[in-house]
């Protein structure tokens, strides 16, 4: 890999790292928001007794889904750190390799004869990098799988929001602002959906470009 390629790849990794951070923050905040919206809806429903029981079921489902989403989001987090660590180990090894390249360049053709051990070591490091890269690819695949599960969860959540809208329309006469509550829930879900989608694109780009 040329130094330029190396730098390019390094930049891409850093983009993913920074995107991971943002995605995690956005998802956390939006999930917390979803949870609060759901609780808010449940409180509203409880305040109005049995009249809004139907919406209560929706709000409950919404909150449970939010909890599931948080759980899958946390699985996602668990895999981000190993990916970053793997990428940084690659960086570490490449750094050493770069030093070697300098030695090789300066040592000329005699190097092999003068210091056979160097080449063996270099080969070992190449292998280490290859293994590390394979490992990173594996983590990345897993990470993409986690993102897919998260997206599925978000889709289900969107479905719950739609049911909520229908329920809210049915009990609109009660004067309880459930339509607004539903809209707020929908907005919170959209934020998660967007954050997850962006993150997925980021990861896919890393997958496409570097390997």
């Amino acid at each position, binding site marked *: 890999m040329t130094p330029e390629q190396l730098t390019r790849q390094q930049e891409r990794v850093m983009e993913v790292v920074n995107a991971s951070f943002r995605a995690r923050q956005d998802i956390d905040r939006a999930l917390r*928001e979803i949870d*609060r919206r759901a*609780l*808010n809806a*449940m*409180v*509203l429903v*409880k*305040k*109005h*007794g*049995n*009249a809004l029981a139907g919406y209560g079921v929706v709000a409950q489902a919404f*909150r449970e889904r939010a909890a599931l989403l948080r759980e899958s989001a946390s699985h996602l987090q668990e895999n981000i750190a190993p990916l970053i660590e793997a990428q940084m180990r690659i960086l570490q090894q490449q750094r050493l390799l770069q030093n070697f390249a300098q030695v090789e360049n300066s040592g000329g053709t005699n190097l092999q004869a003068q210091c056979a051990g160097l080449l063996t070591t270099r080969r070992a490091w190449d292998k280490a990098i290859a293994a590390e890269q394979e490992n990173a690819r594996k983590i990345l695949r897993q990470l993409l799988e986690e993102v897919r599960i998260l997206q599925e969860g978000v889709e289900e959540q969107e479905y719950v929001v739609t049911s909520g809208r229908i329920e809210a329309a049915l009990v609109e006469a009660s004067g309880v602002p459930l339509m607004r509550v539903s809209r707020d829930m929908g907005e919170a879900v959209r934020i998660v959906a967007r954050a997850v989608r962006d993150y997925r694109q980021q990861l896919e780009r890393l997958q496409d470009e570097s390997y």
Partner: protein
Amino acid sequence: MDMDILQDYLAEARELLEKAQEEILCLEDRPEDDELLASLFRAFHTLKGGAGFLEAQNLVDWTHHLEDLLDKLRSHQLCVSSDMIDAILRGLDVIDGMLQELAQGDEPAAGPEDLGTRIRDLAAGVATPQSSPPPEAPQQVASAAAEPTPSGTLYAEQRVDEQGKSGVYVAQHNENSDTPETTAGDEISEDEFEAVLDQLYGAQAPGMDAPESAADEISESEFEAALDQLYGLGGAPGLPAADTQQNHPATRMHDVPIAAAASPAPSAAPAATAGEPPKPKAAPRTVTSAASEVENTLRVDAARLDAVMNQVGELVLLRNRLSSAISSLLDENEDLGRIAREMDLSVNDLQVNAMRLRMQPCKRIFQQLPRVVRDASRQLGKNVQLEIIGEEVEIDKAVVDALSGPMTHLIRNSLDHGIETPEQRRALHKPETATIRVAAIHLGDRVRIEVSDDGRGIDRQIVLQKAIEKGVVSSEQAARLSEQEALELIFRPGFSTKEQATELSGRGVGMDVVKETVHKLRGQLDIRTNLGAGTTISMEFPLTLAILPVLYLRLRRETYALPVNAIESLVEIQETRIHRMQGRSVYRVDDGEVTPMIDLGELLHGRKLRLGREPIEGIQTERGLLLISEVLGNEDSVVKPLDFLDKENWYQGATISGRGNVVLILDAQALSRHGIERMGAAR
């Protein structure tokens, strides 16, 4: 004295008394209403009969005078006058006193001599000059009996005695209840009763010439004999008819053992009339119109009902814990989840039904009020019309039990302080007759009870002055109070804008007691006033006190619960929305309004929550924004009372969370009140 019989009688008598009072007040408007007169007469008659059975001679004598007077009115020998109504009402008070004495196990003392004489004179036509109305033949007094009620409706009402021994009646109303087969053993339907009477008297209608009227009029002795016969025989509806076929009613009557009349079988019907010696008097024939209302009624001891409620409460708590425990297993076993959900629904239904057992119509709170208004308005020389709305709205028994004192106070207060004299009202171009409106309104899982008047309203400045004079607040504190807070000073102990001067307000119940009662019933008290236009005091109660939906919240490491009904919404705290106004921290909510902020960290832990350094969330309540660490979730909880805390605290009880921990339930109103004071005082 057989205590069971006494208790039965007392409960019955109280009911009769309440009903009688109501009817007398109606009589004022409809003095010619035969149905009312007949019903009143029956009431005194039944009261007397029972008293005789219990050998309470003074009560017998007293009710006898009243019965006599009513008999004359009923037969139109006398005309109803407002003097008479006064006398009868006061007579009722005397009976009430006597019943209390009986309840305490005492022999009732003789009634007041002067009132007794007065009633006798009235009955004799001495006091009131007779305008001798044309002797009119009595009409068929009661049309087809009680109003039809929806079939299959559960109806519960409580009947109390002075010792707090109370029973709750649960009735199943049935439209088809006139068929003998469907009626309960203890009761008879009107039709049955008529059939019995017909069989008893057939063609030999005593003292009457026309066959039609024969059915309408019977002598009292015959009537009583019939009653004895009916009830003495254990109440099997078919039996008396068989017996009376002997055609010797009078002799048969005496064969009935008296003790049998007091059969211990719980009965809402007048069970004690058997002791009354027969007297020849006319009586209406539709005595059972009242009885038909309690068809399919089971009399249940309130203590048993409470036990059921407690058990349901425990079940709810266990359900919560089970749900919480199961939720962690759901991944492994879907069946378990399904069963848990079904159980959930089932327990919810059980909860709802058990709750309904405790529900009673607000009528039981309101029925005393016409009398209160009548007495007080006459005494104060004010013209007041009482409007009652929503008598049929049902609410938890505990609220019904506890609210009559406060309601009376509110009405008296309104009459005494709120409503102007007719002259003043005239001068203000207001209708001379003031209106006090009492309403029960059903709002989802809450019931609001409102007392409003169109009087002069409450002047906040005067309230403030008075509060400072009385040392309820310092003038510094007073300066910081909002208008509403100033107004609410009237609920403080030690506050009274009038020097307890009048007889009306000096009854030991003050606004602080009203507040305290409402608070104990987990209600919310609110007051709105409009200077010159009137005042409304509203009390909002949960439909049931047995189950309390709460929101669990975390304050640092501790978990608390907050009743859901106190919550408007959950808020994400944004620093830019926090402002300082008049030395207080306020928060700008979405619609641009500001609300006081109450830091629960400061209030409960003595340590402020630090924004930006620890998680903070907001709970918007009606009175302010509570700052807490985190909202956790909601649950239907069961309240356990706390009795070891000071009077002044911010908890309304405790509950057991799904995880099995004891969690204190916060009192949002107390929190906002103390919180606002404390925050204000700290600066």
